[in-house]
Each structure stands twice: as structure tokens, then as C-alpha cells.
């Protein structure tokens, strides 16, 4: 997407606010021009050139009055601009977050959290500035046009001498632009590395402390910071020289005007008042050129920021980052949408056909340790309890993730009640389906908010779900029951409690199809058995479960036995024990040492 289109798209988001912003800033600058014109009136009055009826005291009162008008317009402008900025920034941050959440859940962010935050914070800020400064820029052009008209009316020849050097400067700016972009990219990247390293150091505090590597990590950050210093100095040096070049062009113009005006002053065709207004307005024009130059640089920096936003959302055109969406800046927040169960959501049949999945090769050309999936086909009907089992690395978790759209499929189709599902990650959500992963993702909040996640559920239903998740005995033992703050990633809970909290989160959503990844890594045999007993007692729900526990395998209506990413066999436990040596060996492994 071109920068022009991006700006247009953003401007259209809150058009009234944006136009208001523009009007306010134009008014501010025009009030400033008014002050210049009053100076002309003053000098003309003083030297007796003016025939205006206004008295000297009247002029002084005008000066004060113009000052007040400016104060008022600035106040309005600032208020409008702040609101507009917040709208822009919030929209982009909202979209970035949505973009990150829309990516396949199990695929990585592609960069560290620290780096991603950098984009959310700084790159959004740069675009926010671009939009806000575009308003100033437009107002400045109006301002320049008015000033130029006044000057042309006074003396066209001298005015022409002003415009030429200014044009030269604009052309020069375009030539240097490329370097500015390159230096800015390098500087942003160096900054990103520093914030990334600091983020990693924060996450790895224990590793660093226990290895006594505090000093070394500090010097590593220091080294990255030096690189950043170097890159930033280059970036700043170039943009500052550029800036000062602009300003000095303005001063040079003033000199030219003075030389050109000297003769006319002598001849009397150019009054002292004309001279005053010329010097002020030439200053105005120089300022506009300087600001225009700064703005052009900034637009280039803005396009770097847009690229980085596009990169974060893995969207080549950057369109996703600026798509219009509601952001609720005022008034009550909208109620959380409760997923409604339509008749088409009622689960009858799930069919998976010829599903293939290949892990992407990593940077070293090595395959990751896990197998992909090959030729996976199976079906599940309403009310069935289907267990996926197999050795470690046979692809069990990969299968669940691929099915739920958390990993991108290479090929194959998934159909729900006979209809092909185009976007599994969008489709396999409550009330159709919910998933408890092996490593549950908990947030630093109360246990209750972690389970509800915004869902307005009755307390009775909550209690029932906690019972289903075999957590009813744990909750009273927590410091504040359901209101206990469980800390970042749920550190205040034991591994098993985390797992069961995630299961409760799934039960609260009352999905048609419940998908559990291996619970056994966090639950002991007895707890897992209780959990299955309680869930079976509910009936009329369908389960797809990864497990190698006897309690699950014995209850299974069907077992899908995976080996090296392929289905080795399907059937009941007895059937598989009879036909598949792999199943026998797994079953024997489960019997104990």
C-alpha cells in the first residue's frame, strides 16, 4: 500500500475530527499572519503612510486582541488534536493486536515480545505523528499561500526572489530522502535489538542470576546500546543537518529580500510597514519550507514504521493495520458477545480427509524433532469419545493443532456436519468447539476472570464447571478462592491446578466438541480418572482427546493410533490390542515399570 493511500484511509476514520483539527490549526496560523499585518498597520500609521481610520491605541488593542484569539484557537486546536491522535493510535494498536491474534495460534510471533512491543509503542507513535503533522502541514500550506498572496500584492519582483531558493530546497530534500530512510531503518533496528535484549534479560532473570552472568549480560546490552548510539547518531545527524539546512535557506532568503528592497525603500515605493510585513512573512515562508522538509522526512520514517507493522501482522500490504474498526473511546464499553448456538452449530459429524502438515524447515535447514502429518483421515460422530494416542513425537498434539487451525494445513479438508470448513481457526471456537492445550495460557488476573474470560456465566454454572474440572477442592484452599490473583502465567497455581483451570475455562463455554491435549503431564492418575468420570456423566457431548492413560483408553469409543505422523490404526482398545503391535507396546508401557 502506498503511503498516500494509507494516510487517506486513516484520515477517513474520524473525518469530522480530522477536518476540525485542520480548521483549528489553519485558524491558529492565520491568526499569526494577522499579527504580522497589524505590524504593517502600526508602522504605516507611525510614518503617516496609512489612511486607515484606526488610532494608535486601536492598533495596540488589536495586538492584544489578536493574542487572545490565538490563545483560544491554540486551546481548541490542542484539544481536537489530542482526541484525534488517541483515536488514530488506538485504532492502529487495536488492529495490530487483532492481527497478531489472527495468526495461527501455535506459530510463533517471529520476534521477541520486547520487539513486538516496540512496534506497538514507537511505530504507532510515528504514524500518529505523521497524521497529526499532516494537519499542521496542510495548515502551513494555507498559511504560506495567504502570506505569498499578500507579498505578491505588495511587490511581485521581490517575492519572486524569495520563492526560487525555497523551491531548490524542496528538490534537494527529495534527493536526500533515500538515505534518511536507510539510516532511520538502521536506527530503529538497533533500538529494537536493545529492547529485545532487555526483554529477554527480564524474562531470563533467574537463568542469569544463577549463572552469575549479571555483569556479562549487562555488558552485552551495553554493546548493543553502543551500536544503537552509533546508528541513532547517524540518523539524527543527517536529519538535523537537513533541518538546519532548511532554516538557513530561510535566513538567506531574508538577506536577499533586504538587498532587493533597499532600492525601493529609498525610492519610497516600499514603506516601512511593507518592509516589516515582508520580513515577518518571509520568515513565515522559510518556516513553512523547514516544516515541509521535516514533514517529508517524517513521512519516509512513517513508511518504515508501516512496513514494520505489516511485518508484525504478517500482512504484506499493511492494510490490516489501518482497517477501520470500532475502538470505544467514550461511553460504556460494549457487552461481551456471548457466542450463540445456532442450529447449524449443533454437532453431528466431523470428517477429516487426507490431511497433510509439514513443519516449516528452520533456519539451519534442520527439521524440528516432531513429525509432520501424512494422509490423516478420520471421522467423529456426536456423543463419541475419541482418543488419539501414540508415542512421543508421533504427531498427536500436531494433529489437534492442525485440526483447530492453530497450525496451517498443507493440504486436506475438514468438514463439520458435511460442510467443508474454510478457515478452521475461525470456525473451531465456542460454542462449536473448545480446546485445553498441554501448556495452558493463563493471565495475570483473578482465577475467576481467567476461567470466565469475559463470559457472563451464572455462579451455579461456574460452580458446576469447577466441579467438572475437579477443582472444587482446590478453590477454597486458595488465598481468596476464585478471586485469588494467580500471577503472571498463573505462577501461584501448581501445574495441575493450571491445567484444570484451563479445563474449567473450556467447560464454562459449554462447547459441542471438547478437545483435550494430553492432561497426564500435569494431572495424576486419580485426578484424571475423576475428570473423565464427571465429564462422561454429563453425556451428549463429543470428545477428542490426546491421552495414553488407561482410564481414557478403556473408555474410548474409538482410538486413533498415530505413528510417525500417520494413522497406524483405528478401533476400540480390544481391536487395536489384537491387531497392532504398536498399541500393545504402548499399553504395556502404561502398565508400569
Amino acid at each position, binding site marked *: 500500500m502506498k503511503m498516500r493511500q494509507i494516510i487517506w484511509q486513516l484520515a477517513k476514520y474520524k473525518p469530522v475530527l480530522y477536518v476540525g483539527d485542520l480548521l483549528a490549526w489553519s485558524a491558529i496560523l492565520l491568526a499569526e499572519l494577522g*499579527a504580522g499585518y497589524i*505590524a504593517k498597520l*502600526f*508602522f504605516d500609521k*507611525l*510614518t503617516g503612510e496609512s489612511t486607515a481610520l484606526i488610532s*494608535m491605541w486601536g*492598533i*495596540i488593542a488589536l*495586538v*492584544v486582541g*489578536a*493574542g*487572545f484569539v*490565538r*490563545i483560544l484557537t*491554540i*486551546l481548541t486546536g490542542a484539544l481536537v488534536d489530542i482526541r484525534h491522535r488517541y483515536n488514530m493510535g488506538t485504532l492502529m494498536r487495536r488492529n495490530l493486536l487483532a492481527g497478531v491474534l489472527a495468526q495461527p495460534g501455535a506459530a510463533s*510471533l*517471529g520476534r*521477541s515480545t520486547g*520487539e513486538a512491543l516496540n512496534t506497538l509503542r514507537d511505530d504507532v507513535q510515528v504514524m500518529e505523528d505523521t497524521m497529526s503533522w499532516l494537519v499542521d502541514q496542510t495548515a502551513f500550506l494555507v498559511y504560506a499561500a495567504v502570506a505569498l498572496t499578500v507579498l505578491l500584492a505588495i511587490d511581485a519582483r521581490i517575492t519572486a526572489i524569495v520563492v526560487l531558493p525555497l523551491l531548490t530546497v524542496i528538490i534537494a530534500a527529495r534527493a536526500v530522502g533515500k538515505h534518511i530512510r536507510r539510516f532511520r531503518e538502521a536506527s530503529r533496528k538497533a533500538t529494537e*535489538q536493545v529492547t529485545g*535484549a532487555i526483554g*529477554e534479560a527480564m524474562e*531470563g532473570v*533467574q*537463568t*542469569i*542470576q*544463577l*549463572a*552469575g*552472568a549479571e555483569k*556479562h*549480560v549487562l*555488558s*552485552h546490552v551495553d554493546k548493543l546500546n553502543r551500536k544503537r548510539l552509533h546508528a541513532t547518531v547517524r540518523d539524527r545527524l543527517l536529519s538535523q543537518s537537513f533541518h538546519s539546512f532548511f532554516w538557513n535557506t530561510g535566513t538567506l532568503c531574508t538577506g536577499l529580500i533586504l538587498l532587493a528592497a533597499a532600492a525601493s525603500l529609498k525610492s519610497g515605493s516600499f514603506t*516601512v510597514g511593507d518592509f*516589516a510585513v515582508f*520580513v*515577518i512573512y518571509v520568515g513565515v515562508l522559510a518556516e513553512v519550507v523547514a516544516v515541509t522538509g521535516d514533514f517529508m522526512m517524517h513521512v519516509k520514517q512513517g513508511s518504515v514504521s508501516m512496513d514494520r507493522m505489516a511485518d508484525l501482522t504478517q500482512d504484506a500490504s499493511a492494510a490490516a493495520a489501518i482497517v477501520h474498526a470500532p475502538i470505544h473511546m467514550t461511553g460504556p464499553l460494549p457487552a461481551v458477545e456471548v457466542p450463540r448456538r445456532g442450529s447449524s452449530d449443533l454437532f453431528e459429524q466431523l470428517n477429516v480427509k487426507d490431511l497433510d502438515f509439514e513443519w516449516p524447515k528452520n*533456519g*539451519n535447514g534442520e527439521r524440528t*524433532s516432531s513429525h509432520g502429518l501424512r494422509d490423516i483421515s478420520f471421522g467423529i460422530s456426536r456423543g463419541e469419545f475419541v482418543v488419539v494416542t501414540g508415542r*512421543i*513425537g508421533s504427531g498427536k498434539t500436531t494433529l489437534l493443532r492442525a485440526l483447530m487451525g492453530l497450525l496451517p494445513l498443507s493440504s486436506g479438508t475438514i468438514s463439520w456436519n458435511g460442510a467443508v470448513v474454510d478457515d478452521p481457526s475461525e470456525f473451531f471456537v465456542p460454542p462449536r468447539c473448545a480446546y485445553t492445550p498441554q501448556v495452558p495460557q493463563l493471565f495475570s488476573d483473578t482465577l475467576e476472570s481467567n476461567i470466565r474470560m469475559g463470559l457472563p456465566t451464572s455462579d451455579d454454572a461456574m460452580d458446576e464447571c469447577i466441579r467438572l474440572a475437579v477443582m472444587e477442592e482446590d478453590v477454597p484452599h486458595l*488465598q481468596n478462592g476464585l478471586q485469588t490473583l494467580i*500471577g503472571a502465567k498463573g505462577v501461584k497455581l*501448581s*501445574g495441575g491446578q493450571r491445567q484444570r483451570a484451563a479445563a474449567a475455562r473450556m467447560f464454562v463455554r459449554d462447547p459441542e466438541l471438547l478437545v483435550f491435549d494430553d492432561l*497426564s*503431564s*500435569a494431572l*495424576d*492418575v486419580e485426578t484424571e480418572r475423576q475428570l473423565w468420570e464427571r465429564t462422561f456423566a454429563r453425556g451428549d457431548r463429543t470428545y477428542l482427546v490426546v491421552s495414553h*492413560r488407561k482410564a481414557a483408553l478403556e473408555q474410548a469409543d474409538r482410538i486413533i493410533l498415530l505413528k510417525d505422523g500417520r494413522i497406524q490404526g483405528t478401533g476400540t482398545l480390544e481391536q487395536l490390542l489384537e491387531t497392532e503391535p504398536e498399541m500393545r507396546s504402548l499399553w504395556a508401557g*502404561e502398565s*508400569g*515399570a
Partner: protein
Amino acid sequence: MWMANVGLFAFGHAVAFGVGASLWRASLITIGTVYLVFHYTELLRGPISEIRTQITDLQRAEAGIRRIRTLLDTQSRLINEGDDHLPQGALPVAFENVSFAYEAARTKQELDDEDVEPEMVPALHDISFDLSPGSVLGLLGRTGSGKTTLARLLVRLYDPQHGVVRVNGQPVESVQIADLRHAVRKVPQEVQLFRASIRDNVRLFDPSITDAQVLDALEHLGLREWVLDLPEGLDTMLAADGGGLSAGQGQLIALGRAFLANPGLVILDEASSRLDPATESLLERAVDRLLQNRTAIIIAHRLSTVERADRILILDDGRIAEFGDRTELAADPGSRLSQYLRTGLEEVLV
């Protein structure tokens, strides 16, 4: 600020005009001087608005400094006053009546109110045991039974409320923390990898460790060939979150860090996630080498790991449920260990 500035200049211009006009009318100054006064007033505008911006910046900086100071003023509760050192080689370990409780997490409000005594969550009760140099202790117990806490006390991430933790007969408080953490190396379950070269990931940015030493450690891990085959060798950059490495390779790197420290006591928190057989056997070999001539405490999740142990300590709810020689315990059908072995370790322990 800006508006005050504008007001000031409007006033300034009014004064300049008023004074200029009356002096001109009294023929005290020339028109040039009137212009000069006006122009100078105008010239002041730039510097004053610059000062205005600078003041705003300074205020921001002041707020920043205040927050930084709060952070810097935070004192660690661990007192690092010990000046004893630990010798090279395998170290004996002893716990004498050690009890420890965590402070319950407090809300921000509770933190502000200093009168509120923090609520304590007990984690270890009256733990006593001895471990002779060079022996391997298998530490078993369910999640939350206190295994991790016990390991944390050894490296002084916390100090116990009661009792003494001794390494080499010396109370851990009497040893310099840096020295203690050098001699007692905890290999965590989850590996923290950095976006840096493989070299720096293994040596944790310590510039005094040479490439030869890093390669030597990698050799022990069976990773030397793999690294040397990479186009950039040790300089290969790892992506964020250890991208580019498999989980097993990440764990091997964590072991490599321990090799380089050459500790006298290794605390190994075995990862519960499972790996493919090839990496698994690499890891087993690496652990074998790491345990040679060292005292070790292994938080075990797997049967094969338990079999390395000379002694077994089973924790239950922060108390010692069983402690003794592995072979003896395994031979006694009434022991918890043999009960665990019968039902399968992975089934019972988490």
C-alpha cells in the same frame, strides 16, 4: 505553556508598539529604532519557545528519574555478606531442620499498607538430610511438594526461616553469592535462550570464555559437529525465543552452560516434556558426563533418571516422606519408591 507564551508576546508587542509610538512622536528615537525594538521582540520568540520545550522535557525527565530511583532503591532481602569460598570438586550437602514459607502475593493495596503482616504459605517443613560428595540424589514428589523450593534454597534464591543449608559443611549464607552460584549450578527445566550467537548463548556473554572452551563443552554434548557444520559456526545467531533450535537442542545448551561453570554440585530440574529418541539419547549421554565427579540433585520425572540416583528423597506436602538408598528402597516392597515403580513414575509424579 504555549498559550502563556503567546499571551506574553501579544503583551510584549503591545508594549513595544506603545513605547515606540510615544518615543517616536516625541522625536526621541528614529523609525529605525522603533523597528529595532519590534524586531528584537520578535527575535526573542524562538529562544523562548525553545526554553519552553526544554522545560517540558526536563519535567518529563524528572518524573522518569523519580521512577528509576524507586526501582534502584529496592533492596534485595538476601544479605550478601559471606566471604567464604568453595573449593573445586564434588561438594557434600546437608539440610538441618530447614523450614521455609513463601510470602503470599499481596495486592498493591496491601503492599502500600506496611502494617499488614504478609501471609505465609508454608513450602518446606523441618527438612534434614545429608548427601556425601559425588553422590546423586533423586528428588521425587508431586507438583507443589517442595522440590523446586528445596533447590532454590541451595542457590540462595531465598533464605530459609529456620534451619541451616550447608554446602561443603559451610552454611550457604557464609559464602559469597557469586561464588556459591558458581559452585552450585542449577540447570532449569525451561531453557532461556537469547537472541545472540550460539557462542554467547553457551557462555552467557562471558567474554573470558574462549571458543576452545565453548567447543569443548559442545563436544561433551555431542553438538560440536552440528555447530561446526553450520555456515556461520559459533557465530550463528539464534532467533527470538530460541527459534532455529529444537527443544532438545535448547536443553543441551543449558547443560553446556553448566559444563562451562564446572560446578561441584549440579541441580538438574529434568524437563517433563519428552523428546525424540535421538535427542533423548544425546541428552542422556550429556547428563552422564555432567554428573561425573560431581554431587548432583536431580528433580526426576523419568524412571531412567531415577536409576542414576544413589539416594532417593521423596517429598510430600513439604515434608520428607522417604529418604534412603535407592537400591534398598526399591527392594523394600512397602516403600513409596517401590510403589511408584510399580505404578509407573510418570503416572504418579508430575
